[in-house]
C-alpha cells in the first residue's frame, strides 16, 4: 500500500480546496471520490463528450490547481469510501472490486449533501426525481429527463436547474416555490455584501421570464399520479406552515417532476468514526460538531463543506481550504502564526457569505405542512416499501423509538440506511412520544456506506 498522506473524502469544492491547501504546504494527500471525475455535484464534468463543458470557472480553476500540484495529490476517483475504523482507517473499494484499508494520519471529510424529499403520494413513480438527478442527466450526458417538466420544492437550486433544462431545450412547464414571494423579496437586504450571488439569482429569474416559465410562489406538490410512470402532478397553494389548501388543487399534465426541499449533509462517515453530532435543522439536520479549526471531536478528523452543514459551494471551498490548513498544522507542517493569519482571512470571507445564506435558510426552512402530505397507502420508506399506515400502526402499537419502529416495520432498514425516510419518520416518532426531534437521534450509519459486493469485501483480506 502506498502512503496516502492525509485522506480527503469527497472531491467537490471543499475536498479539492483542502487538497490544494495541503499540497501547497508540501504534504501529500489522497482524494477519494465515488464520482467519475473531480468536481463533486456542483462542478461535475460532462461524461458525454457531446455535452458542452459547463462554464464553471471556479470548478475548472480548482481542478487545474489539483492537477498542477499532482505530485502531492493522489486522486482516486471512482473509489468508494465506505467505512472508517479504529479512528482514522478508511476502507475503500475500487470499481474493479478491490478493497483496501488506507491508514492516514489525518482525514478530511468533505462528502457533500444529498437532496431532501419528504414523502407524498406518488413520489416513487418513474419520472419523479430530484432536481440534482435531472441536472446530471442534462448537463453531463445530454439526456433529457422527460418531455414536460415541472420543478418544485424550495430554494435557488430549483431556478438554476430549471434554467439548465431550458438551455438544453427541455420544456419546463413551471417552477413551484413553497415559500411566499414576499420572503424572497427581502433577500437583497441580506445580500448586499454578496452582490454577485444576488445577480446570479436575478439572471435565473430573467431567463425563466424570457422563456415564459412561470415561477409560482407559495405552492407545494401534494401528489403525483400515473400508472407505470408519472403523467400528472397535483399542487396547491399553502399557508404559513406550508399546509396545502386542498380545495384549491390544480392538476398539471407532466411526465417529469423534479422535486427538492433543500439538502441533507452526508454525515455517515463522521458517525462511523465516532464524531459527536449535533442537530441543526437550519443547515440540513445532523452535522458533526466542529471547533474553530473545523476539527471534529475525533482527533485527526476534520469536516468541511456541505457535508458538515449546508452552506453552498463558495463556503465549501473556503472551509476546505481551512480544513486543509488545519490538518497540515495538526501534522506540524505549518506554524501557528501562519495558520492563524490564514484562518483569520478565511473566517472573514465566510462571514461575508453568511447573511445571505442565513436568510435563504430561513426562507427554505422545512415547514410542518410538508409532513402532512402522506396518505395511508403512501410509501414512506422507499427501500423497504413501508407505507404510512404500517409505520403509523407500528408507532401506535408501541414503537416509541426510531429503533423499534425500524425493527417492527422495517422502515429505515433498507439500502439507503434511512437517509431518505429519517427526516419524516423521526418527526413522526417525536410527535407521537412528544419528545424533541434531537432525542430521536440520527439514523445509525453502518459500514458499508454504499453497496459493495461480498466478493469485494472479502478481497480486503489481502490487505493488512
Amino acid at each position, binding site marked *: 500500500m502506498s502512503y496516502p498522506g492525509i485522506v480527503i473524502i469527497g472531491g467537490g469544492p471543499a475536498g479539492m480546496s483542502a487538497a490544494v491547501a495541503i499540497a501547497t504546504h508540501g504534504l501529500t494527500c489522497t482524494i477519494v471520490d465515488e464520482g467519475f471525475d473531480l468536481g463533486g455535484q456542483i462542478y461535475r464534468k460532462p461524461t458525454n463528450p457531446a455535452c458542452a463543458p459547463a462554464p464553471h470557472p471556479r470548478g475548472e480553476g480548482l481542478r487545474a490547481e489539483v492537477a498542477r500540484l499532482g505530485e502531492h495529490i493522489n486522486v482516486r476517483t471512482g473509489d468508494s469510501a465506505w*467505512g472508517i475504523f479504529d479512528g482514522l482507517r478508511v476502507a475503500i473499494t475500487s470499481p474493479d472490486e478491490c478493497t483496501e484499508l488506507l491508514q492516514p494520519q489525518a482525514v478530511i471529510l468533505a462528502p457533500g449533501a444529498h437532496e431532501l424529499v419528504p414523502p407524498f403520494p406518488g413520489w416513487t413513480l418513474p419520472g419523479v426525481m430530484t432536481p440534482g438527478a435531472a441536472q446530471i442527466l442534462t448537463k453531463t450526458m445530454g439526456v433529457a429527463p422527460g418531455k414536460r417538466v415541472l420543478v418544485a420544492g424550495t430554494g435557488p437550486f430549483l431556478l438554476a436547474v430549471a434554467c439548465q433544462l431550458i438551455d438544453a431545450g427541455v420544456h419546463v412547464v413551471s417552477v413551484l416555490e413553497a415559500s411566499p414571494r414576499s420572503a424572497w423579496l427581502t433577500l437583497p437586504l441580506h445580500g448586499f455584501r454578496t452582490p454577485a450571488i444576488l445577480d446570479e439569482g436575478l439572471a435565473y429569474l430573467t431567463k425563466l421570464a424570457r422563456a415564459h416559465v412561470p415561477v409560482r410562489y407559495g405552492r407545494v406538490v401534494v401528489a403525483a399520479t400515473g400508472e407505470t410512470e408519472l403523467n400528472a402532478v397535483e399542487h396547491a397553494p399553502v399557508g404559513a406552515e406550508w399546509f396545502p389548501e386542498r380545495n384549491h388543487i390544480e392538476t398539471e399534465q407532466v411526465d417529469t417532476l423534479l422535486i427538492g426541499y433543500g439538502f441533507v449533509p452526508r454525515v455517515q462517515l463522521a458517525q462511523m468514526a465516532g464524531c459527536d453530532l449535533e442537530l441543526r435543522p437550519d443547515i440540513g439536520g445532523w452535522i458533526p460538531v466542529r471547533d474553530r479549526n473545523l476539527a471534529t471531536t475525533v482527533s485527526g478528523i476534520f469536516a468541511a463543506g456541505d457535508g458538515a452543514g449546508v452552506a453552498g459551494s463558495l463556503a465549501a471551498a473556503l472551509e476546505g481550504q481551512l480544513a486543509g490548513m488545519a490538518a497540515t498544522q495538526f501534522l506540524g507542517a505549518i506554524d501557528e502564526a501562519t495558520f492563524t493569519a490564514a484562518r483569520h482571512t478565511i473566517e472573514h470571507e465566510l462571514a461575508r457569505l453568511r447573511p445571505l445564506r442565513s436568510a435563504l435558510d430561513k426562507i427554505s426552512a422545512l415547514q410542518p405542512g410538508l409532513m402532512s402530505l402522506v396518505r395511508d397507502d403512501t410509501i414512506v420508506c422507499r427501500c423497504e416499501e413501508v407505507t404510512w399506515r404500517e409505520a403509523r400502526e407500528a408507532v401506535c*402499537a408501541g414503537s416509541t423509538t426510531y429503533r*423499534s419502529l425500524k425493527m*417492527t416495520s422495517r422502515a429505515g432498514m433498507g439500502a439507503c440506511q434511512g437517509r431518505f425516510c429519517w427526516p419524516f419518520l423521526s418527526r413522526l416518532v417525536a410527535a407521537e412520544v412528544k419528545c424533541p426531534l434531537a432525542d430521536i437521534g440520527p439514523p445509525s450509519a*453502518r*459500514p458499508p456506506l454504499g453497496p459493495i459486493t*461480498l466478493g469485494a*469485501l*472479502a478481497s*480486503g483480506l489481502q490487505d493488512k
Partner: protein
Amino acid sequence: MTDTTDVVVIGGGAIGSSVAFALARHGASVTLLDVSTPGRATSASAGGLWSLGESLGLGCGVILHTAQKGAGDGPAPLPLTFMDFLWESNLRFPSLAAELRTLCGIDIEAEAATGLLYLVYDEEQERHANRIIEWAGSDHGCVEKWTPQHIHNRDPLITYDLRGAIHFPGDNQVNPMLLTEALKRGACAKGARFIAEARVRAFQCSNGRVVAVESDKGTIACGAVVNAAGAWSAQIARLANIEIPIHPVRGQIVCTEALQPGTLRSNLSTRDCYILQKAHGEVIIGSTTEYCDFNIGVRYQDMCNLAAGAIRAVPALRNVMVKRTWAGLRPGTPDELPILGPAVELENFFHATGGFRTGIVAAPLTGEVVAASVLGQTPKFSIEPFLARRFQSLVA
C-alpha cells in the same frame, strides 16, 4: 411518583419480554423496563434456533472454547442437561408462534423445516463431525451425515468442494426482533406495562428484599425483580450488591441485500461463519465471538473474514451486495450456561441472563421457568444447573 407492581422485569430483549409474557399469563402484574441501548444481543442476533448445533459445540461460527483452550480435539459439547433445555425450548416455537399471532397479530417468522447444515471441509472436521453425531445420540431427532450430492440436491448454491455435512433437522430459525416485539406486546395484552427508556438507577432494599426499583421514569414498588439486562446484567445486579460473572461477548455480523426467498434453504454453519437467509430475503453472515468490553464497533478484518467464509461455503454470494454490518453483545458466562432463578444475596431478586449464543432459542422456556421460580412454583424443567450459586466461589 411511586407505582406498585408484583414484578419488575429489567430488560426488554427476548429473555425479559418472554419472562414478562409468562408472568402476565399467570396473572401477575408486571412492569417491563427497557432502555434502547445500541448493541443489544436480541436486535443484533441472527435468530438461529440451533438447539443442537450450539449445544453440541459447533459454536456456529467462531468458537470461544477453541479460542480459550487451544484447538486440541475441537470443542466439547455443553452439558447434556443444557442440550435438553434448549431442545425443550425449541419445541415450543410452533405453538408460541400461533399464540402470538392470535394475541397481537405479529408473525414471528418461526420456520419449521429450515434445518441446520454443518459443512465439513476437511479431515479434522470430519472427525469432529463423527463425534458430534455420537454426542447427539438418538433422543434429539435424526442428526445425520449428508453427502455433497445430498447437500447439492437441497441447496444447489452450496459449494461442491467439501466432504459432506451434518444435518440437524430440528434446528430452524425465527425473526428475533419480531419474536421480542410479539412477546412484549403479548405481555401487554395480558396486562403487563411496558416502559421505554427507563434506565434503572438503584434498588431500595429492606430486610434482605428489594422493595422498590428506581428508574429514570420513576420509582416502582415491587414484590420481586427479574434481571434480564443481557450483557449489562452484571451492572444491574451490582446496583443491588449482587455479583454475577456476566461479560459482554461481541458478535459481528455481515448482512446482504434481500435475495429471492429460497435462495438458501438451509441454515449453514461452517468453521468460518454461519449463514442463513431470513424471511425477508436478507442473508446474515455471523459471527465473531470475542471479549471486547462494551465496544460495539465492527472490525474491518473480521468483516472481510466473514465475507470470505461465506463465499467459501456459497460461492455465488460473491456477487451479492453487502447491505450493512453490525455488532451485538451477548451476555457470556464462564461456563457458557445461563444464570437463571433466585439470587443468593436477595430473596426476591431473580436472574434471567447469561443467554450467551442461545438466548433466542432459550427464550420461551427461560420465560416459563423463571416465571415459575418468581411465583414460587416448581419449574417444569429443573433450573438447578443454572442457579447463580454455582459461581459462589468464583465471585467471592
